[in-house]
């Protein structure tokens, strides 16, 4: 833990800002619903698109619900779903990439061509078709998001792994008689963790945007629950008035994605510095 703290201290300013934003949103995702002053679906204000007040810190939405409460409850879907999907996509993609790297061209070629095929499917259209076919549910959204970003992660991880597989220490391990599993996990994987973390952050951001986009189209998380994307969509009519109800979730998406980006950029940078 002390180690993590020291590393946080060593981050450049942008990285510290990113880290603060990420910790903030993680906290909101974990504790938000407990802190929410009103229930998610309760109609509590008499006016729609109210400005901020002591009772409603972020005003009210298009039906007179408390925006702050909806935001605190909604962040959980965006952050949790995106993190789970990014984790699933990254582990699957990296596992397949390592298999390809140590498996030789007989494994690598078919796998890579299959991934090339997947990568050519436009992610939004693909998700629209699946949601239209099966109906929206949290599980399906998770799978769609993960599936869409496996090929991208595979590409990056395979490029890294294939290069590392040519390193002398991997040759030494092969000449020692080590099995492929040991070579992949103990020799190659530890040396690609840093770029993979950066990639994980990117995937996370992409998935937040994908999920928000789907919600904006009305195909994501279904009412009365709402993630950040659906909050933007349902309050779109308030755009003309500059209502807080639409600005707050939009700003929330922006700070979450920008925060993650700043953090991974900083980690990637210090990682590179260490490598030299």
């Amino acid at each position, binding site marked *: 833990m002390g180690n993590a703290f020291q590393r946080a201290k060593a981050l450049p300013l942008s990285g510290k800002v990113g880290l603060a934003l990420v910790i903030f949103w993680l906290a909101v995702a974990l504790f938000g619903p407990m802190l929410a002053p009103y229930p998610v679906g309760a109609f509590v204000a008499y006016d729609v698109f109210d400005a901020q007040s002591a009772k409603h810190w972020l005003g009210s939405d298009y039906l007179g619900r408390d925006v702050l409460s909806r935001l605190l409850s909604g962040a959980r879907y965006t952050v949790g779903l995106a993190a789970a999907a990014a984790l699933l996509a990254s582990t699957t993609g990296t596992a397949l990439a390592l298999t390809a790297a140590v498996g030789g061209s007989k494994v690598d070629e078919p796998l890579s061509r299959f991934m090339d095929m997947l990568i050519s499917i436009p992610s939004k259209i693909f998700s629209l078709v699946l949601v239209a076919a099966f109906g929206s549910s949290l599980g399906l959204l998770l799978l769609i998001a993960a599936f869409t970003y496996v090929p991208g992660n595979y590409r990056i991880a395979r490029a890294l792994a294939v290069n590392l597989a040519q390193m*002398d220490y991997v040759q030494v391990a092969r000449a*020692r008689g080590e099995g492929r599993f040991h070579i992949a996990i103990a020799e190659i994987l530890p*040396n690609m963790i840093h770029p993979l973390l950066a990639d994980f952050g990117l995937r996370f951001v992409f998935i937040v945007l994908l999920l928000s986009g789907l919600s904006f189209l009305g195909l994501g998380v279904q009412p009365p629950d709402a993630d950040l994307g659906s909050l933007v969509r349902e309050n779109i009519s308030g755009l003309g008035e500059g209502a807080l109800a639409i600005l707050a979730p939009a700003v929330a998406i922006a700070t979450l994605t920008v925060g993650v980006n700043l953090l991974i950029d900083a980690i990637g940078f210090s990682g590179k510095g260490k490598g030299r």
Partner: protein
Amino acid sequence: MSEAPHVEVKGLTVTARNAAGEIFPIVSGIDFALQRGEVLALIGESGSGKTTIALTLLGHARPGATIAGGSIRVGERDLTKLDRSALAQLRGNRIAYIAQSAASAFNPSRTIMDQVIEPALIHDLMPRAQAETKAVELFRALALPFPDTIGARYPHQLSGGQLQRLMAAMALITDPELVILDEPTTALDVTTQIEVLRAFKAVVLERGATAIYVSHDLAVVAQMADQIVVLSQGRIREAGAAAQILHAPADDYTKTLMAAARPAIRPAPEKIALPAAPLLEIRGLTAGYGKIGKDGRPRIPVLRDINLTIERGATLGVIGESGSGKSTIARVIAGLLPPASGQVLLDGEALPPGLQGRSRDQFRRVQLVFQNADTALNPAHSVGRILARPLAFYHGLKGNAARMRVLELLDLIRLPATLIDRPIGGLSGGQKQRINLARALAADPQLILCDEVTSALDTVVGAAILELMAELRRELGIATMFISHDISTVRAICDDILVLYSGTMVETGPRAAFGVAPFHPYTDLLIGSVPEMRAGWLEESHAGAAPPPIGETGDHPDLCRFQPRCAARVDGLCNTTPPPRRPLAKGSQILCHHGDESLCPL
């Protein structure tokens, strides 16, 4: 000598900032001076600050470093007082720089001529046509092949030695007042190095250039320098005329350098009573890359018809220049590259060609040690983990028993036990190479394949590694295959020697046979190309003499591979008939048409 020196450096200090933000000196208190037309050599190990000093003569400090004090005078100008644009006017014009690796200094997408005349054009010194004429003159002076047309080629079409000479042409095109040569021959094979040195020396003499020559190799410096400055850890240890430094060094550090430069011959250890059967035997080995054709040869052959044996506890030296296939032999024995034909026998038992099918015990008995410890040790692992893995893998040692053994190994390679939990990144080059060696020893092998283990190290550090290997050999009785491009090292530590040229064995024999003539013409070239530590060697050496003219070469695949460069080739024989393998009276075997009598005049 009454006139003021042409280049004068006084009290030079260069500082840098460390990770904690403290300023510390990289070099300090540097004073030297040289007259017009003199060559001064800066000599030292890596980290001694020699390149840093050389760069300050261009008014340049590497990123993070600053020239903090002192004066650097070249001609009339003090470089420390000039601004950026004034320095830009000087660089590549009045002061030129020749970098270590010409291969990476040339832009691969432009022709040689464009790049060689660029300094003259940038500084508006002469029109293009005149610059090109001058470049061709320089090509001729530097003994480059096809001087009239070589300029139209691209860098990838030329060899490393040619590119290095072209860099010199680029530097000299503006007739600079000062040329800085930064380790210009370090990356080259000895046989190429001698050609490049000859060309450099001729041009330097002919044009009366003033030069600073940076090198770690005393013998090379002996050929070039009038004055020598010996550096260690950023300070001058000794400075003086070349002859004095080379023949009567006063400083202890200089003496260490001199001693390390020429490894002492180590007598073979007393043969322990071991069974007489050879440990490793290679029979008729052919290997390479690409598909294997109908005649049993791969599309790109690297090794042809290799036969060798290594006795228990013996050391076999494999020597050749880069591209000769010497590392490939080790890869084939280790199973990383399955051979196209031929057999590898360990203890009389044939090893499976590839990695598949070898038993864990077969893997254990042969261990591979790579040249570059920076890439051969996994940077993600600690010292302890790297050494513990073979212990667990081959011997099932775990927990405390493994840790004890790791500590024993660290002790064996003379490293402190405190290193055990350190990451690899924190070690020095010599320490890494010791760990690299210890990992092989952890397996408790019978044979270690050492691929250029000292080449990437400083002379003094490399000598310590060789010392350690000799000791281990005495104590543990492990057989070694020692692959190197340095014939003096191989002659010093090996029992038997194999000379490889372009994948064929041109001469094999016991060490004693490599101390007396006659040699195979290629061995002769190799031995003759190793610089000796005295001035005048370069002029006297006959190595690299132009080969006699010869008719068209036939297309038989087994013709002598060395024939295009051979000074002893015979028209009508070498270019039409494959050479036989014949014994020489001194005890070695050569692949040549010549025998004892006809080789003697060489």
